[in-house]
């Protein structure tokens, strides 16, 4: 029989309840070990520190995209005045807040740029050469185009100073946005003031524009500029699609974990998971749509300035395997994993799908970043010990990220206590 639940928090524990004091140090130690092992092994490898920096950038972009996706989740929920998501919104707010902390993790990468090294970004060097082209292609560029070489033109945007300024601006913008939402929401926990919600809603629209701009340019800067001569205006959308998808998975997994450990047991219901699952499936398809659109346009136009990027990932046997893995693992399998109400209302299945998608999302960033390290090498020259480096670094960065989450969450409530739409969320029911 259907009864309306009162808009009251009933779970006995709504905070990490001291868990962060235990988890954070452990996570930090694991993080230090993981990253340390990765650095040591890389130094012994052929490419040296460069090997580590690339895999570090991969894992960094992976966790960054989660935070960015969570920030989008919070903003869009305010923008649409959503009621259902109130009980999972705090988790997203906390992850979004991690974006500021991730700014610290970006320092090693920024340091290579500031020190004038082209270890990661090939555009960052004296006479920036057409790094990842063959001699014949280079000659063609210079001969055919009766104008300054492309590097010269792109250098206006991709240069040390401007890059540094932009990156700092991104992290400040994300941190500022996340803090705005988190602090107001925390304030409401105490006062229950409805005006705070109105205020967040009013600001969510302009902030959404800020979000769009920063995500577009940060994806250009951090990932796409690895292959600085490439063109694709679809890239930021691709980045965003993966980011929001992985954010949904992370929110879902965090919710499940919190409930499994006896926290916020009453507030997040199967209906919330069901809706998250629906969104996940939607964004799996969206990711596929965008990935294919980007590919199709370039494939059809068949212009060497654009095709070389895919050529690398399709005609090199190793990267080809990874491309197929993404197509199947990032699109087809999750599509069917999340198909149907039964699967989307089964916590175990959802947890499995979320972990699977997150793993694929990491592979996605690997696929975007690693081929750029040494365009001549193919995946097979990166495997072997390389796998250990990648996994160690991934574990390390994720552990640091978890520690960051624990420290930010602290003793704060993991669910908004007095949100005006709490009742709606608690009584949320889907079919």
């Amino acid at each position, binding site marked *: *029989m259907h009864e309306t639940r009162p808009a009251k928090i009933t779970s006995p524990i709504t905070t990490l309840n001291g868990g962060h004091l235990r988890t954070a140090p452990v996570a930090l130690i694991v993080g230090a070990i993981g990253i340390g092992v990765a650095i040591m092994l890389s130094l012994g490898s052929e490419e040296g520190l460069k090997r580590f920096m690339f895999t570090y950038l991969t894992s960094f972009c992976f966790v960054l995209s989660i935070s960015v996706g969570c920030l989008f989740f919070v903003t869009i929920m305010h923008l649409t005045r959503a009621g259902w998501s109130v009980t999972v919104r705090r988790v997203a707010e906390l992850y979004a807040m991690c974006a500021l902390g991730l700014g610290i993790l970006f320092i090693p990468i920024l340091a290579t740029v500031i020190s004038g090294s082209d270890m990661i970004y090939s555009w960052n060097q004296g006479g920036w050469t057409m790094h990842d082209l063959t001699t014949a292609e280079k000659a063609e560029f210079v001969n055919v185009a009766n104008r300054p070489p492309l590097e010269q033109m792109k250098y206006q945007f991709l240069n040390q100073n401007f890059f540094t300024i932009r990156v700092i601006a991104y992290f400040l913008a994300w941190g500022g946005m996340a803090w705005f939402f988190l602090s107001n929401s925390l304030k409401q926990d105490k006062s229950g003031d409805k005006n705070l919600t109105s205020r967040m809603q009013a600001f969510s629209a302009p902030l959404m524009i800020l979000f769009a701009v920063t995500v577009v340019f940060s994806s250009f800067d951090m990932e796409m500029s690895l292959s600085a001569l490439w063109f694709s205006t679809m890239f930021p959308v691709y980045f965003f699609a993966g980011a929001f998808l992985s954010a949904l998975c992370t929110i879902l997994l965090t919710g499940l974990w919190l409930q499994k450990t006896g926290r916020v047991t009453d507030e997040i219901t199967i209906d919330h998971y069901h809706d998250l699952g629906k969104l996940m499936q939607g964004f799996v398809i969206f990711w596929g749509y965008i990935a294919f659109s980007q590919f199709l346009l370039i494939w059809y136009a068949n212009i060497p300035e654009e095709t070389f990027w895919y050529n690398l990932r399709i005609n090199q046997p190793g990267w080809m395997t990874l491309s197929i893995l993404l197509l199947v693992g990032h699109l087809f399998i999750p599509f069917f994993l999340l198909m149907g109400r039964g699967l989307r209302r089964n916590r175990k299945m959802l947890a499995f799908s979320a972990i699977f998608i997150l793993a694929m999302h990491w592979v996605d960033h690997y696929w975007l970043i690693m081929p750029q390290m040494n365009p001549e090498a193919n995946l097979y020259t990166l495997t072997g010990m390389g796998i250990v480096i990648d996994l160690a670094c991934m574990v390390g960065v994720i552990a640091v990220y978890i520690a960051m989450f624990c420290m930010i969450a602290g003793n704060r409530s993991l669910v908004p206590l007095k949100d005006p739409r709490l009742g709606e969320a608690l009584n949320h029911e889907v079919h």
Partner: protein
Amino acid sequence: MAEENTNSSTDENSKLIGLVAQFDDPDSLVQACDQARQAGYTKTDAFSPFPVHGIDPALGIKRTILPFIVLGIAVGAVFIGLGMQWYTNGGSLGEFSTDESPVFPGYRFKISGKPYFSLPANIPVTFEVIVLSSAFATFFGMWFLNKLPMLSNPLHRISRFKRATNDKFFLMIEQADEQFDRGSTEAQLNQWGAVSIDECRRDLTDNNLPSWLRLFALMGAILLLLPPVAIFRAMGMTSRAPRLHVVPDMDWQDKSKTQTLSPIMMNDRYLFADERVMRAPVDGSVARGQLDADTELYEGIKSDYVPTVSMTTPQGSVRTGLGTQDEAEAAPPVEDVSMYVTEFPKEITVDEALVQRGQIRFNIYCAACHGYAANGDGLVNQRAIALAGIGKAQWTSAKSLHDATVSNAEKNPLGRIFETISKGRGTMGPYGAQIPTADRWAIVAYVKALQETGIKPVLAVSEEDKSGESEASDANATATTPEDKTRPTP
């Protein structure tokens, strides 16, 4: 509410379908549904002005199979979408559908060098087909499952029931249910809190169409067939009737077209004596930036040259078009080669950049006929010679520019090559209108550079061999492909 005729469910004019109980609020409806299900009723239905949470489990309604219908149709659409494109693109069935024996001819168009059937190009269309057919499957599947369209529903005969779209809630128990019993069911409904109970009866009076209407419908259907029949008949037929003009003032516009007579009349006379639509510039006027007085730069003719009387016609200014070689030889042109400049005009700086520019322009404009190495083996030329061989065309072979007559600086000074490009020569057409002056000089520079390399013609042009001018060895000629040609600076 209570009927006397409790036992007979059917009388002459109507048949009992079920009992409809009214409730005043959603909660009592849900409760009643729950009790009806517990009492073992299965053929029940509830009606409410808005979706009521929890009504589905209360009624024991199973989940719809619509998603599976949609999934099935969508998977089918993948094959339909791909198959349709595969067929229309003349996809391959091995030896059954080659160009020669087209069992499935399709439309075999090569588009930007892609295979006839290439998956990436076909995915968007397939995707659209999936989306469209899924939407249809959802929409019409829902109709089908809900037995729509239903032109008449006995429920609408109950006047109270109208408020189901407004503020009342109804539960219906069908007569077809095994548990149904007119009396006890009514008692149960009352017990569960029904505010009022109505019988739902189907009208059994004759509901056939009047016979004259059938006739009309038949005639209408036949008439509707006429337009398609007319269209089918018209297909593939010729007609002498003038076409219909739906928007006449778009078909006949008040304007003059190029190369026609001027329609402008004044006092019954044409406004322009020559009656032409296109007006020539006034004598002696020069358009801005087109003075072109410097003959050395613009025509390749020495500025101090004074035409002599012995000159018949200016060479090359008229394209002879289909003139045969015989005619050309019959009237050998009288030419004063001394009129042409032998040096590049002072405005043109000859350097590597110029020659490279010349190469690009040459490959675009000239290579089609003269070949990349200028030895006369361009594709147009080859094809034209082949056609001429079987009498399907008349063609003067595009000369090898390494021909002695062309490469000899005495007989063919720079200015003359420039003129050849600008105004054409013999059967070669003029390119002055397409290629800017500076580019034409660049081509001249590149032609001279090519001639310096002394490439031997690949096409067997016998005079070439006789003249014995070609100094390049065979090995040299084969090693020289257009791409890796060295670019000497003149």
